[in-house]
């Protein structure tokens, strides 16, 4: 084989191996590429769920306005009357409360970025602080969701009652499960950090959890807008 080709190999090794990374064709680490692909797949998952919600909500309102007794009997009469008057499910939401919990979740993206910055700078204390803060903010959001689900259930929105309940709980529940998964990842990182093993050589792991976390936040921005804000 030609010397050029050999030189090419040597060059590739020199260029990438000296800082501990693996040579990859794209220059992007395998893990990061895999995480992006996973998130791409998740887009379709949430896309299908959001479409399902929109269709189900529209069908639900059509039946409510038409006074289909199968549907109107699934929720308290005063709620149904409000829905009929508004022609939408808008009266159901508690926008200030959900805005507050959305704000909390969005702030957790900021603390996630700070955690990643801290770990790249080998700042152990700040790494732990910001990881813990992110997990705490995420948990606060989940607590808010649990509260909201409980309140909605007491008001008469059940999972097996009608289309609106089934699709609302499935969509937001799926998102909540994703946030919970993210909290588990953050807690695992925090555990590693407290054992003193989360140094800048593992900054990419924190970055990957961050990618996932930001994605889940962005999905919430969509869900909040589409489910709660658009009538």
């Amino acid at each position, binding site marked *: 084989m030609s010397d050029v080709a050999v030189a090419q190999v040597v060059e590739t090794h020199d260029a990438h191996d000296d800082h501990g990374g693996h040579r990859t064709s794209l220059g992007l680490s395998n893990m990061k590429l895999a995480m992006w692909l996973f998130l791409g797949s998740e887009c379709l998952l949430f896309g299908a769920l959001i479409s399902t919600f929109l269709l189900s909500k529209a069908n639900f309102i059509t039946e409510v306005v038409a006074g289909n007794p199968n549907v109107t009997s699934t929720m308290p009469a005063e709620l149904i009357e409000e829905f009929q008057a508004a022609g939408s499910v808008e009266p159901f939401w508690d926008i200030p409360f959900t805005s507050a919990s959305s704000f909390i979740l969005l702030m957790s993206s900021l603390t996630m970025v700070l955690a990643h910055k801290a770990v790249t700078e080998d700042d152990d204390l700040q790494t732990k602080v910001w990881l813990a803060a992110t997990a705490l903010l995420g948990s606060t959001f989940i607590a808010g969701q649990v509260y909201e689900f409980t309140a909605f259930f007491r008001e008469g929105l059940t999972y097996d009652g009608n289309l609106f309940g089934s699709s609302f709980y499935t969509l937001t529940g799926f998102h909540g499960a994703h946030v919970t998964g993210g909290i588990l990842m953050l807690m695992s990182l925090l555990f590693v950090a407290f054992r003193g093993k989360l140094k800048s050589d593992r900054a990419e792991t924190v970055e990957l*959890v961050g990618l996932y976390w930001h994605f889940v936040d962005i999905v919430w921005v969509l869900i909040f807008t589409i489910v709660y804000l658009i009538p």
Partner: protein
Amino acid sequence: MADLEPRLALPSGSSNGRVARPLGAFSRPRNPTGLVNWLTTVDHKKIGIMYGSAALFFLLIGGVAAILIRLQLAVPNNELLSADFYNQVYTMHGTVMVFLVVMPIGAAFSNYLMPLQVGARDVAFPRINAFSFWVFFFGGLMLNTSWFLGGGADGGWFNYAPNNGIAFSPSHGIDFWNIGLLIAGLGSLTGSINLITTVLNMRAPGMSMMKTPIFTWMTLVTQFLLLLAIPVLTVAQILLASDRLFGANFFNVSQGADPLLWQHLFWVFGHPEVYLMILPAFGIVSEIIPTFARKPIFGYPFMVFSGVAIGFMGFGVWAHHMFVSGIGPLSVVGFTFATMFIAVPTGVKILNWLATIWGGKLILNTAMLFAIALVTQFTVGGLSGVSHALAAHDTQQTDTYYIVAHFHYVLFGGAFFGFVGGMYFWWPKAFGYKLSETIGKTQFWTMVVGFNLTFGPMHILGLQGMPRRMHTYDVVQGFNTWNLVATFGSFILGVGTLTVLVNALVSYRKWVRAGRPDVGPDPWDARALEWSIQSPTPEHNFDYDPVVTQLDDWWYRKYQKDENGVLRQVHTGAEIAQPGNGEGVHLPAPSYWPIVVAFGIPVVGYGLIFSLWLVIPGALITLAGLYGWALEPADDLDVDEHQGDDDHGDGDGDDTAAEADKELEKV
């Protein structure tokens, strides 16, 4: 070259600072043998062989179902199978063949060959690869246990709403269909991430995307289709499972639900699905035809981009499955055009194969015959398919045997013939001996005759108006003759298909009796990198990184132009192949955790169907498995045979957590 440090190895003496800690009963196996070797392997080649073997096992189940269908339809007014059992048999036949036979055979070829074609030592994430296989296998087994636990699914492989609801299908069959395929889909999803990462990121030095073999390209497109189509099916099945198991109302018409939602979700997945079943076979024949026509593939960039175009357009044609569902004239027109357009890149491929064959010095061995059969039979199926872009024509033929004939021509006559050709082509690479050409050609003609006798008459039956999925027919309807012919053909086809197993056994014994002669690294004088290493493939694949300077690099190392510009052989493959010396090579270590994690998931599935209490142990097994996985270093530093650092040594925690997250979705 051999003294260069292997790309995939850790620098000698270095470690990533982590020490292997034994974890109870499932501590890392050391140099396992026998069954444990297969259960714990993370070797892409063994996983590929396991995918293939599992697919052949499920092929027997799907094949028995097919024969039962044909026996039931052989004569009019037959009562061999009850109508209820007949519903289960054709539903499970379709489901098993699509999800547990064609898809995993594609995965088998991709797993085995793609890393070899790009010059990699393994896939990007070897343990996730093992997990993908096991979760597919357990999901498939779970689906098939429905035969013994109250009957199989009975709503057709697409299980349209509201017919799939508990009111119309009260047995657990559709629940098994839901949960089993959700679990198998998890394997497809993780597998797709793994294989895409491998193609994009682990190509040999110098191998740009446009120097990558077509089979690898088609693997890439296929895996992208899986990546983006599987989540849509997942959502559809979660909605249906919620309806059936937890009383949700997604397809409850009395609550105002729109059952068309199911059809849309199913076919948004389902049409990319048909392309992801055929594209691996397209890739296989794109390797076989140039080899045995002794010419480079005609129009390589066109082959690549037509495959990519099929991938893109495959997401925009789903509603042509729904022309009679009342989707409105505008939608019908839109999807009519999209469907006509997608035939263009497919036609480009057919023409390029023909142009490759044109003027070539053809070697008509078994692999080449199967490849030519694919081109021919797929064209028949493709033409009957594209004609359904015309909504009027489609409305006439929909739900008749004409459609059955169409998709068997593309999936059996196309995809499956391609797979059998691929088996004959790569068998020596995987197992070290060639399959018998005599038996192979007998098998080929048996299959061609059987296949066309079985599915050819279905065109006529369909045009005569025989509906799909009907349990029986009356004497006076005029379907008797061709149904009998089809049943006759199906037995010939069954014998022909099984012949590949006979051939494997007979050829193996002959090879052993002859003292296991070396088949050589490059028995076909072929073109891609997998032929530049010894046969059967050494465990470590490549001794050193192959360096690629052009498309068909291996071929042009054997053949170079002389002073007159004529291509002449300067080396044989055996002269310049890598010797297979694995000294100093570090391989990923085997692990119990993938199979442990995969095992817990169907336990959760059974729990969802029968008793929610069972969910708890299942989830605990999987969760414990995930943490065991995360805490076990990908690299085993205590044994001589070191690990490859291409395993995901650093990112385990979050990746497994991502899987845990998917698991939570199911719980």
